[in-house]
């Protein structure tokens, strides 16, 4: 009996150490976010207080109204950037969910010859960063006349190997018997897909939607290359026009960062459970 209690004490001590580590980790993750939120609500004079204060004393919406109402030096309103980002991200989400679920279903359940090889190429494409393809992609976009066009930001991101892979792994779990039953009942292939398979893939699209929204919403590299017209710029590029040296801009930058993060966090909270369901199947089987 004594031995057991000693061992238990030891394991409690170990776990106490683990809890401390997790607490430190959570603090490390949250502190900059808390800093961002506090700074976003600071009035101008509080940004210049010395020594610097972490928390806001007299919160104000000044930074947000400056950001949203003021017109930048290039005479493009911040609201326009929000609009551009929303349009690009929403269409990306829709296109991603549509083409990946159709394609994934085709490869898994309709088994066209060459489908397996195609999926192997998709897996290979997970292994290098998309920036490798930058230059030829740019040449293709130029030749298609898509520079300064929303499509240049949408199509490459929506056809990312990553989403196709997630969808295919999830559809692998869908029982064949249900599809066969539908076929026997005289249901056409497209109808089977739309009426029987799609509804049960809800967790997978929820995940795909959140991930592709985040990727598209935060996509800086594509926008930097394909967009040079101020009117067509998206939010990540707009940050460059807001940020500058000196603490005077800290409020605007934080407010802008907060506007960019908030929608994602809200969407994530609502879809967290579905995302976890999908991610179970997202492993790569060697």
């Amino acid at each position: 009996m004594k031995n057991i209690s000693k061992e238990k004490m030891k394991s409690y001590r170990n776990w106490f150490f683990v809890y401390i580590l997790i607490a430190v980790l959570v603090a490390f993750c949250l502190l900059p976010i808390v800093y961002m939120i506090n700074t976003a609500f600071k009035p101008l004079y509080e940004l210049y207080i010395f020594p610097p204060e972490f928390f806001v004393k007299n919160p104000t919406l000044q930074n947000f109204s400056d950001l949203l109402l003021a017109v930048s030096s290039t005479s493009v309103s911040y609201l326009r950037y929000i609009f551009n980002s929303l349009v690009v991200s929403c269409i990306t989400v829709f296109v991603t969910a549509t083409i990946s679920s159709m394609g994934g279903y085709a490869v898994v359940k309709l088994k066209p010859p060459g489908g397996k090889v195609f999926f192997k190429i998709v897996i290979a494409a997970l292994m290098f960063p998309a920036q490798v393809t930058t230059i030829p992609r740019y040449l293709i976009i130029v030749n298609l006349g898509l520079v300064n066009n929303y499509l240049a930001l949408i199509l490459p991101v929506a056809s990312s190997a990553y989403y196709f892979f997630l969808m295919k792994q999830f559809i692998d779990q869908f029982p064949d018997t249900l599809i066969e039953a539908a076929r026997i009942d005289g249901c056409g292939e497209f109808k089977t897909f739309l009426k029987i398979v799609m509804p049960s893939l809800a967790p997978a699209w929820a995940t795909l939607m959140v991930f592709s929204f985040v990727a598209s919403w935060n996509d800086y590299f594509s926008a930097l290359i394909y967009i040079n017209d101020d009117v067509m710029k998206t939010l990540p590029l707009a940050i460059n026009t807001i940020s500058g040296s000196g603490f005077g801009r800290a409020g605007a930058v934080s407010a802008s960062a907060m506007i960019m993060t908030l929608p994602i966090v809200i969407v994530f909270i609502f879809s967290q459970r579905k995302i976890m369901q999908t991610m179970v199947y997202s492993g790569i089987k060697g």
Partner: protein
Amino acid sequence: MSKNPKKTILTRQQIIGYIMLSPFAVCFIMFTVLPVLTAVWLSFTEYNMIQPAEFIGLNNYKLLLLGDRIFITALKNTLVFAVIVGPIGYFLSFFAAWVLNQFKFRNILALFLYIPSVTSSVAISAVWSYIFSGDRYGFINNTLIEMGIIDEPILWVSDPQYIMTVVIIISLWMSMGNGFLVFLAGLQNCDKSLYEAGAIDGVKSRWQELKYLTLPQMKPQLLYGAITTISGSFGVFDVPVALAGLPSPNYSAHTVVAHLYDYAFQRFQMGYAASVATVLFVITYFVGSIVMKSLSENDKDGKKQRRRVLQ
């Protein structure tokens, strides 16, 4: 078993299969497969987008690997970054997921750890640059001075000595992303009956449980996390550029992708930039293949174990 009717159904199915696959396949081939092949071809040419590409053999690679000191700096920075942020981010994600999985409030804690990874890297780097500001107003400097650790404020984001450290800290902060979610989901779905069987067979501590029962079941998720971490960390661009600019002071935060961007879109030397892309492709593909092989070989044991339990 009559084979003929089955065959005709199959062909119809297959045609529909091709139709359904085609939108993705066309975009994927156009924006990923062809570009990779074209990048490799362009890397053997000189091309400025005005004159037609001219084949120059290995000249780009000779210049890149033997004559371009800035590229070597970029390569070194990228490797240092990938070697530190990749493994630490990966283990941190797994460790956090593993501990959180045993908590009651894991959903809210998971959200807290996940938020940094979904922030816009450009926007949040700007916020971090105020935290790391080089004057006494900077939060880090102010805290360190008050604690008596330093006397003078440190120029975190403009002194070449410190820039990469700050980039690494921010990137680690953002590293608990989709890999972390995959781990958490995988852990929640580990076979519970295995643990009961393990307890009977003499698995004593949770550490042993992790080693003998959890990890073998998690191989597919571990592989997925590793692959995405590798391609993510070798493609680093946003944070160093947003923090230190392009070019960064003394190229101290110059990365391979930054070099690629510089040559392709500021100097329009597309052939040379394509050779940078090809080197990046070869490195990540090589590292990815090694990791994939080593993890999937072990996977066979894991699968066998799982099958045995399921039967």
